[in-house]
């Protein structure tokens, strides 16, 4: 993962997103969304990135339980930490968008509430980690918790919002999955949306790996003393 090509790709994709995100033609269907649909290239990828990072995190938690090594634990915690940052940015940008689209920043929308619950579950992961003195216990118990947290991620983000009406597009109860109707997207927007998802996700992975490398250096110096 220490190669440069995917970092170059990340820079290019993000610059493409930030320019084409404003330049690409969007269909104006009615007076409601107008140009604010361009938030799709910034708000939605935050959640894609968060999910990817949490998925990587839970894989390392499972590896930690199998191999009992400190490295897997370090990877799990740093990917979860960066994922949480992206989740917070997702929920903040969502509230900003909602303020102008739905009339208030928080309208108790099924998907908003679900996302908030998911983030709180991941906050608890860090509180749990902070409550241990013994580092082996900390790593193992928090790895088990991380698996449960990830298991709750899908119900809170994808299943519960489907049970009721959601303000998110496509949220007609069991008819569709709120905010995940990729086929509804205009082809021109799809050409920006997927590069955006990929670029922002790569940035998340990049920051997580930087933190991991920094922690390794810290550990190296700690063992010298």
């Amino acid at each position, binding site marked *: 993962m220490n190669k440069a090509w995917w970092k170059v790709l990340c820079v290019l994709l993000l610059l493409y997103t930030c320019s084409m995100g404003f330049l690409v033609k969007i269909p104006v269907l009615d007076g409601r969304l107008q*140009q604010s649909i361009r938030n799709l290239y910034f708000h939605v990828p935050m959640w894609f990135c968060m999910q990817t990072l949490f998925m990587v995190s839970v894989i390392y938690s499972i590896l930690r339980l199998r191999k009992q090594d400190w490295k897997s634990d370090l990877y799990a915690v740093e990917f979860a930490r960066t994922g949480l940052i992206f989740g917070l940015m997702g929920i903040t940008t969502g509230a900003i968008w909602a303020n102008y689209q739905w009339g208030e920043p928080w309208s108790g929308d099924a998907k908003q509430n679900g996302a908030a619950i998911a983030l709180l579950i991941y906050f608890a992961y860090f509180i749990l980690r902070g409550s241990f003195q013994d580092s082996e216990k900390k790593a193992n118990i928090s790895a088990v918790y991380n698996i449960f947290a990830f298991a709750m991620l899908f119900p809170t983000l994808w299943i519960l919002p489907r049970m009721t009406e959601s303000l998110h597009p496509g949220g007609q109860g069991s008819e569709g999955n709120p905010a995940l109707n990729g086929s509804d997207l205009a082809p021109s927007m799809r050409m920006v949306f997927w590069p955006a998802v990929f670029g922002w996700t790569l940035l998340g992975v990049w*920051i997580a790996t930087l933190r991991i490398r920094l922690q390794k250096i810290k550990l190296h110096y700690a063992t010298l003393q």
Partner: protein
Amino acid sequence: MRHFNKFKVVLVSGLLLFSFYALAQNMDLKTEEPTDFMHSNGKIFVVMVVVITIVTGLLIYVINLDRKIRKLEKNILSGKV
């Protein structure tokens, strides 16, 4: 002169050129409103330039962090502490 590298020269001159481009204005003779690209669409492209500037700045910051960490890693690997 060590810090005056090619990359910075290109970056600064690129940004300067861009600002000259932004200054160039075409006027609508009737309303006397500027009609160039940067003023079109409710000046949304001003926001675009701001976003690109912020993201570029953050990316340069992350790249620098990456380099600094790599230096520390090299020092450790070569046994310099």
